[in-house]
């Protein structure tokens, strides 16, 4: 209470006593203070509000501690938005493929150009390891795309030159070479996908004839389950396993994104064109845990963002695009691979700028 208010209250009390004196009544005594019921209710409401706020805050804090996501990704909030630029990680020449470890602390990046190799980077972009082919596999190696097993965290690297898929543990220690049971099956892998049950998807572009390009689906033991897209695809690049046993594929040279449902039927979801959300040369692709599909348009120098529908064959809704051609922050020069983590971050292999760009929500 301010001095002015205090003085005014005292003056009002003295005036009241003076009035009683003037009426000849008993000696004046100060009136008893009666609590206002409205004030009590107000305080109760405030208290409840504080409790609710605390509970909410606790829930948000717990959600954040469990998910480590930005608050903009809180459940119930609008997911139809494009990420914003955060930073860039340097140190890799002409990065092509990128994948993230399950805990989001490591990046697996393939380097192309004249010194093809695969590296492990930490979140600051420091090289903390390499994904080396086994010593017995001499010759020329060109790692292209990388996939991470959704439960074990094993890292699968497709080597186009060797025609093999190498498997490493999270830290980059070589574990095995994924080999088809049928030795007659050979492939020259571009895109790779691994689902939680260990099914391995390989985009095979081993022939100069696109009519032979295909998606090979292998059981974990290497037996061929089915072949998809033969005669339909032209340099299939990224493979992303989705819900309901669907797999999304960037059919790169045909300029489209297709989905194969659990029966193997193919549906074109996105196609080449010059309208909003149309594609030029789609290469990398990733699906985040919010159902957002990120498609790298290599020659449009942008990443297109879509939201997938309830059914895999539902046409994704175009949300927007991010990036533009350039060498500055938040611009790309022939971006290629893309990966998302569970923390709302999007990693883009910005090939000709020799960096991995980090975007996020």
């Amino acid at each position, binding site marked *: 209470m301010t001095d002015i208010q205090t003085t005014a209250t005292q003056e009002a009390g003295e005036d009241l006593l003076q009035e009683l004196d003037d009426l000849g009544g008993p000696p004046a005594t100060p009136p008893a203070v009666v609590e206002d019921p409205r004030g009590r209710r107000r305080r109760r409401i405030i208290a409840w509000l504080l409790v609710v706020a605390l509970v909410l805050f606790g829930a948000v804090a717990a959600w954040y501690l469990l998910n480590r996501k930005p608050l903009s990704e809180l459940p119930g909030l609008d997911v139809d938005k494009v990420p914003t630029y955060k930073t860039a990680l340097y140190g890799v020449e002409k990065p092509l493929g990128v994948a993230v470890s399950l805990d989001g602390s490591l990046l697996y990046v393939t380097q192309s150009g004249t010194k093809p190799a695969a590296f492990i980077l930490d979140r600051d972009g420091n090289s903390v390891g390499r994904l080396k082919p086994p010593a017995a596999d001499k010759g020329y190696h060109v790692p292209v795309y990388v996939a991470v097993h959704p439960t074990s965290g094993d890292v699968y690297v497709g080597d186009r030159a060797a025609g093999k898929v190498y498997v490493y543990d999270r830290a980059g220690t070589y574990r095995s070479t994924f080999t088809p049971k049928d030795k007659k099956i050979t492939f*020259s892998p571009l895109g790779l996908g691994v689902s939680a049950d260990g099914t391995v998807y390989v985009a095979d572009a*081993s022939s100069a004839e696109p009519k032979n390009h295909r998606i090979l689906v292998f059981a974990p033991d290497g037996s061929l389950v089915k072949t998809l897209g033969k005669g339909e695809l032209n340099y299939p690049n990224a493979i992303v396993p989705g819900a309901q046993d669907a797999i999304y594929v960037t059919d790169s040279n045909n300029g489209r994104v297709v989905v194969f449902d659990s029966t193997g039927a193919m549906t074109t979801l996105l196609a080449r064109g010059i309208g909003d959300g149309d594609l030029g040369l789609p290469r990398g692709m990733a699906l985040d845990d919010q159902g957002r599909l990120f498609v790298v348009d290599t020659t449009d120098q942008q990443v297109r963002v879509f939201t997938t529908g309830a059914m895999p064959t539902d046409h994704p809704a175009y949300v927007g695009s991010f990036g533009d051609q350039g060498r500055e922050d938040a611009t790309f020069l022939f971006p290629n691979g893309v990966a998302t983590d569970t923390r709302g971050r999007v990693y883009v292999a910005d090939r000709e700028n020799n960096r991995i760009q980090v975007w996020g929500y």
Partner: protein
Amino acid sequence: MRTERKVVRRLVVLAAASAALFIGAMPAQADNGPHVSTATNEVKSGIKISDAGQGRCASCHRAHTAKSAYLLNAASEEDLCLSCHGGSGTGATTDVQNGVGYDSSATTYYPDGKTVLTVKRGTQVGALRGGGFEQAMLGTDSATKDTYLYTYADGRVAYRSKNQLIPPAAAPKGTTSSHFGGVGIMWGNGSLSGTVNVGLDMSTTTTGKLECSSCHDPHGNKQYRILKPVPSDSGFATVIPGNTQPGVFIKDTANKVYTTTNYWIAGDPAALADTGTTTTLGATSITDPTPKATTGTTTVSSFQANVAAWCTTCHTRYLAPRSSWKTNSGDAVFTYRHTGDNINGDAASNRNCIQCHVAHGSNAAMPNSAVENPGDTALSTDSRLLRVDDRGVCVMCHNV
């Protein structure tokens, strides 16, 4: 009503622009790339535009929002081409940056340039015949040959070379010369002249720089190498008899596998093979090229001859007929010259540019430095696009 009209107007403009792009981009299905299509580049009527275009244009072009000339959607033509055909390219089997060809399917195999085998390759990687711009996979240090005894009509005998072989290297190696990206001299360009002149200074030309499209037609011409009849800035304007347009038309197979095991010219399935005793076509699928290249009044049809004529549309004064080694050309620089012209009907001669040189880049080592270019005095380790270490290409044919 006004809105509807506006929408219709926009659609009409869009349709017109799309049609213009489709027509402008008329491609041919040379190698099944994204920039080619079977429906066009042929003389026929009633081509259905939607079948011909199929939206392919948009992988490289933008009608209204292009980043560079020719409505390219990238500022760098080089980067655009290499995004499929470079070391980072995941949209083609040819990696011209590293001189690598990917193909693990059944591949025609020419062990000695004449034997045709079809095998299932055990590897996904082969070397490109033309080498690569930054690396190449030519076994420049492993070239071999056989010799045989040849008896001339007058009874003289001499050893000759045959079965020359340049195997692929195990992995790409850095190039020591490359035919790309520089703003230099177009060596030998111009007519024979008594005035010293080594060639055309590219910095004075309109393009100034050799790029992919200087030599190749990105929209295809139904031939595997999709070479332009007239390379940019070649200054070539000759209309070859029988042609209606100037230029040299290189017609090879529409679909061809580059990967072989011999990078000497005899191993090229699209080239005439000289075994020393017989001349055969390396592959049965090669169509006799027409229109045909020519010099003077002689017209021949081999792929090799056309390649020689094509290279010399820029490097004019290297086009030397037989006996040029003993005949003064009258040129102040290119006075006596190795035969570089097989366009004389002598198909067995086999001498032309790509006999000794690669088109893109070579990893040949030149430890024993030589003078780099005509008129130079300084020594250089530049390999001048030669296929074999040092000047080993000389020894591939000549027994010295």
